[in-house]
């Protein structure tokens, strides 16, 4: 199966991505969205700033987002610049990055009728391309939050290395997502150390044969 990957640029493309994500998140987690009046206790999520589209024969089958600033982990996960600096120091690359610049991968969504084809880990890997994140322009770090099973089955399956920052606090918006046995964490991905070259240098836009990634 070939997947055309491109950033959503036009108003129409952005709306298509938002509607796909909204449909999936509302159906799976009973969540709604808002551009500027979000409230995690009322299950109203904020929208990301940038979107990556996964199209098959012109049909949008998957989409994900990227916070370019005001990341979810800092707004809601209580992650501070100091937390991020500590993780970079631990990897001995603190001087190579600017912790005030961060991008956050988020809202990975595959249409229900296109599931079971390995799209999620593949698109997650592709969304860490520097052509999408542009982390190379301002020495930004990548962060995200997810439950542990997703980190293993999606991020690690894509070959991405992830580094724990801290546990993510409980909010009502995640009541159908996380559980006591599958908690959420905020994590960092250090671009030059943790993103395999196949993803970091993946040219976007581009059409790619989707391969099933083996489970780690």
């Amino acid at each position: 199966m070939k997947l055309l990957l491109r950033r959503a640029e036009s108003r129409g493309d952005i709306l298509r991505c938002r509607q796909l994500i909204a449909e999936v998140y509302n159906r799976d987690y009973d969540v709604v969205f808002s551009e500027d009046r979000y409230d995690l206790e009322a299950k109203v999520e904020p929208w990301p700033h940038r979107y990556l589209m996964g199209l098959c024969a012109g049909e949008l089958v998957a989409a994900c987002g990227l916070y370019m600033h005001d990341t979810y982990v800092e707004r809601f996960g209580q992650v501070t610049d100091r937390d991020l600096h500590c993780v970079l120091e631990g990897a001995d690359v603190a001087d190579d990055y600017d912790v005030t610049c961060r991008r956050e991968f988020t809202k990975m969504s595959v249409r229900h009728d296109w599931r079971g084809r390995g799209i999620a880990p593949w698109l997650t890997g592709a969304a860490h391309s520097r052509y999408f994140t542009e982390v190379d322009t301002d020495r930004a770090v990548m962060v995200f939050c997810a439950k542990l099973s997703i980190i293993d089955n999606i991020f690690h399956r894509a070959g991405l290395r992830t580094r724990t920052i801290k546990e993510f606090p409980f909010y009502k918006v995640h009541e159908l997502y996380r559980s006591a046995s599958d908690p959420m964490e905020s994590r960092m991905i250090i671009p030059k150390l943790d993103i395999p070259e196949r993803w970091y240098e993946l040219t976007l836009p581009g059409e790619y044969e989707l391969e099933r990634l083996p489970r780690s």
Partner: protein
Amino acid sequence: MTAPRLFGSLAANGSGSANRSDSERPLSELSLSFVPLAVVAEWTRCSEAADFVARYFAHDFGDRELAGNVLSTVVNELLENAVKFSSDKSIPAGLTVREYAERMSIVSRNVASASQAAAFGDAVARLAHGDPEQMFADRIASPPETGGAGIGLIMLRKDYGAKVGVRITPSDGDRAAIVDVEVEIDNREVEGEGS
């Protein structure tokens, strides 16, 4: 085709309760159609649409601000319900508000799964006839599972003495149902002169 089922104290057809004459014409009327998915994607559309509809009718009341607040609360509740209980969020839902001399009728319409519709009808049947103060206290003490219906409609009964009815019309070979929810409120409540 299976006949519609009625729940609650109203016929939920926009013409008022069953004991009223169907020939009574509204003094004013406003209808809108919307795609629930667009509301899920921007939740503030719910309150913005409710405020718009409320302001449209508030001109006919002495205390516009109060009337606007009351009507916005009622409309917002029905809009949220219609979005929440739409099984396919891409199928348009609707809202019709009719103003009569003595009352306002607000009707929402959406397509739900048959099981969602049945559960919703049962919930409305219970809340339409029970003691709203007691039901409200019960709901606060033991909230329903996620997706449960009712607290908003109970509040409309408790705070404004609203009458609530649901009409459920099977569709798509009984796999889905068209759900019409009607809330009727006395204009004295809209003007803050309720008992």
